[in-house]
């Protein structure tokens, strides 16, 4: 038996460390604090995860007030996995950030940067562990506001517009979520998610519940860049500092998907979400359009970061398709892809961060001959790219395989064509970069200039993970399977 206060610590550590960073002016010291905090968050998440793996649920009640009256944190295998994923990737990206950030951001601003980073992490972990719908909204706002700041730190002045655009869209999303939560509260008089689920009227058509669901899906859809609500994402990822792009791509959208899962399955229940409301149809349609159109748009991008930002929109499409299949297999595939894609996309954005650090630009043309100038960086990019395409032996293949199986189980053969097309389109855009890096020579021969080890090491850790989870799937598939079972099990 472990102390449930660990849950609390996971969130409060970054929350307390954030203002401390603000008071210290030295960027290096701030980084050290942030690193200690994230790595302890990660260890806590690992302990909690191993606990819920054996015992199922861990709960912490604030001030000793039992669930419906007080706020409670509640972790089962689903959010245990997400918390572990988020804190692990944040730790790795933070190692990368030390060199990358001191290159991109002025020293006097670095303490603000790390403050925002820690707030964002606190928000993301808070969303993940809380069992209270309103609390979730509050943490969502904390993480969103912090991420607007983080994006605005980008060197390019367009980072400001990107951040502003995200702020407007994000606020609309947050408002929708708040309205949804408000409607639920009005209907049931409680904010605890398990309690709401128990009190929602069953078996009768309830307009308020339907409206609440609609508001929540649109609101969360904005946060997770569900097509066609993704317009903020490409600019945000492109112009944000390299480390931030990787951080947000690997964690923020994943947490948003978790929120969606939590509301659909735990709060509203499977039957209400997919049988009473036509969410399966909506998700499958939007997912297909996202996979095809975002991949197609990615092909024509000249800025490589932007290319992979669009690719993120497409990959989110796969996860949404998995959800829309509205079966246990589909849900498993969704969670699995969420898990695998975090490592893959994190690896790609870190490799691009190395490129930005050394070559100063991530435009396609600047990458000519990069395969010779930065062999380790581009090798990492190539491997992560193969994983994104879904070549066997990689994590990407495993998630596509399970998506395949889920689609066949439903006899949706057309879905196979969509998945295959998505893979082929991703092959095209990945290969545009590969060809440029390996088969073109720069206009004037330049000598080798590999990124420093402090950038390469975290990049390769993520790339290694995206292959490791293609070979040893006991953790990823096993947990995704259990998580899907848990989520569907909530339904009455």
């Amino acid at each position, binding site marked *: 038996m472990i102390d449930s206060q660990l849950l609390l610590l996971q969130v409060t550590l970054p929350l307390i460390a954030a203002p401390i960073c603000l008071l210290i002016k030295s960027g290096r010291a701030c980084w050290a604090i942030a690193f200690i905090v994230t790595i302890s968050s990660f260890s806590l998440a690992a302990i909690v995860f191993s606990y819920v793996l054996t015992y199922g649920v861990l709960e912490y009640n604030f001030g000793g007030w039992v669930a419906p009256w007080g706020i409670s944190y509640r972790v089962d295998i689903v959010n245990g996995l997400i918390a572990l994923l988020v804190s692990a990737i944040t730790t790795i990206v933070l190692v990368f950030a030390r060199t990358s950030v001191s290159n991109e951001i002025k020293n006097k601003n670095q303490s603000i940067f790390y403050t925002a980073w820690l707030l964002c992490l606190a928000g993301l972990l808070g969303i993940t562990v809380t069992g209270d719908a309103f609390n979730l909204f509050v943490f969502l706002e904390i993480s969103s506001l912090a991420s607007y700041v983080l994006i605005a730190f980008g060197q390019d002045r367009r980072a400001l517009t990107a951040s502003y655009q995200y702020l407007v869209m994000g606020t609309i999303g947050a408002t929708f979520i708040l309205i949804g939560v408000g409607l639920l509260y009005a209907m049931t008089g409680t904010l605890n998610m398990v309690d709401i689920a128990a009190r929602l009227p069953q078996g009768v058509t309830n307009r308020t519940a339907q409206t609440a669901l609609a508001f929540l899906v649109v609101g969360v859809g904005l946060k997770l860049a569900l097509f066609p609500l993704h317009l903020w994402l490409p600019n945000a990822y492109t112009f944000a500092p390299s480390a931030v792009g990787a951080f947000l791509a690997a964690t923020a959208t994943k947490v948003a998907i978790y929120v969606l899962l939590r509301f659909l399955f735990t709060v509203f229940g499977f039957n209400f979400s997919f049988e009473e409301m036509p969410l399966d149809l909506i998700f499958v349609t939007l997912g297909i359009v996202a996979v095809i159109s975002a991949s197609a748009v990615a092909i024509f991008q000249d800025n490589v970061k932007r290319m992979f930002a669009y690719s993120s929109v497409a990959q989110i499409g796969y996860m949404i398709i998995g959800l829309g299949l509205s079966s246990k297999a589909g849900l498993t595939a969704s969670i699995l892809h969420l898990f695998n894609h975090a490592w893959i996309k994190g690896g790609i954005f870190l490799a691009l961060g190395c490129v930005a650090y050394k070559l100063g630009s991530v435009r396609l043309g600047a990458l000519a001959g990069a395969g010779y100038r930065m062999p380790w960086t581009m090798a990492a990019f190539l491997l992560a790219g193969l994983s994104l395409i879904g070549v*066997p032996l990689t994590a990407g293949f495993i998630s596509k395989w399970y998506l395949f199986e889920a689609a066949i189980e439903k006899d949706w053969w057309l879905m196979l064509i969509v998945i295959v097309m998505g893979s*082929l389109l991703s*092959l095209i855009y990945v290969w545009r970069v590969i060809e440029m890096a390996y*088969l073109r020579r720069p206009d004037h021969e330049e000598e080798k200039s590999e990124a420093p080890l402090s950038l390469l090491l975290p990049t390769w850790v993520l790339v290694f993970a995206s292959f490791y989870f*293609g070979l*040893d799937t006991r953790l990823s*598939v096993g947990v995704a399977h259990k998580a899907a079972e848990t989520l569907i099990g909530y339904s009455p």
Partner: protein
Amino acid sequence: MISLLFILLVPLATALAVSRLTAWPNVREAISLLSGGFLFALVLSLIPSVLDGSQPSYTIAEPIAGLPIQLRAEPLGVIFSATASFLWLVTTLYSIGYMRSHGASNQSRFYAFFAVAITSTMGVAFSANLFTLFLFYELLTFSTYPLVTHTGTVAARKAGRTYLSILLTTSMAFFLVAIVWTWNLSGTGDFKIGGILEDNATPFTIGLLYALFVFGIGKAALMPFHRWLPAAMVAPTPVSALLHAVAVVKAGVFAILKITIYIFGLDLIGETGMSTWLLWVASATIVIASLIALQQDNLKRRLAYSTVSQLSYIVMGAILANSNAILGATMHITMHAVGKITLFFCAGAILVASHKTRVSEMDGLGRRMPFTMAAFFVGAISVAGLPPLGGFWGKWHLALGSLDAGYSILVAVLMVSTLLNIAYLIPIPLRAFFFKGPSQEYCGIKEAPVACLLAMGITAFCSLVLFFYPEPLYQLVIEIVN
């Protein structure tokens, strides 16, 4: 059995060693040669245990429950891998002469990816289930891409795109779908004598599935998915010789054979009769590709179209699915490999020695390069399938298989193809020996480097030996068809 794993590790270790040894070309090539010999010996050492019926296997990992990455030695795989590893050894010898006198750049990268491609080929040969087969099949595509685009020119880039796009599109859109479907129908992907699909599917499903496999394995170059093979000819000649006459293309037809025998089972293919139309696709490929070859002036392109045509012999043998046809198809894998690689060696030698790539420029070249042209003649006879060379046996048994299945028209297709083979291959050495070329242009042309001559001598000699002693091949194939 651990030696199966070593068969993968030996070329892989070679790749690593070779890529680190840029500064010592002699050491690098000695290592390549040694590991080629070692690999061949390893493969041969498996033959006794295959002949006594115990099929040793080795599981590497199990990423998806029920679908392990597993290797197993069975007769078909041993034949294919023995052919490929032996010819790798010979090609390494040839490459030493070719790459050096051609002054090629990035030679270490070249040898390294070459070795990775061999690893993948061995993986295809010994795969114990569909998943493993697919894994190494894709790895083979990716590892040969840098070899195809080796020169980095605009033409190479364009060819590389064709290569990758056709091979990956077919494999993902058809092959993978077929694998998932098979898995869904039978709950397994393991290769088993007699197949795993019987009682699990309707005849229509069987036919559709088989077509997905046959077209999905784009490396077999069945029309209309053959265009990647002529495109791949921009690669340096050793690549065209070993990979695009032996390893890659034969991996394709080998996969079709293996799937026919171990997934569908010979009886099932014969009974359902839903795959007859594929026979006509294969026949059409045989004839059309030969006709196209007839019009090519570029020697390597001519050879490439000839390969497209010859590959469909093997596909045809697989679809006929009786013991004679399977015997013929299997023998043709080895026989055509040995013959065609000789032709490519000659084409490369001509390029190195005289910088000529066009057939029309080769008049009278036989007087300057008699040994090369003589070897070409031997290879051409073998590829055309005439005695006294090895190529004869494959064609002979395929013809018998066609008659067994009651398709005498296919015998006619084979004969027409033989005539076309003669028409586009034999004139090349004849013109080289008997026509007179512009003499002032020819001064200074000498025979190719000794390493090249040695390599083509070995393969030409092997074609001859295989006509008189095809016995070992028979013994191995009998294990499967009975």
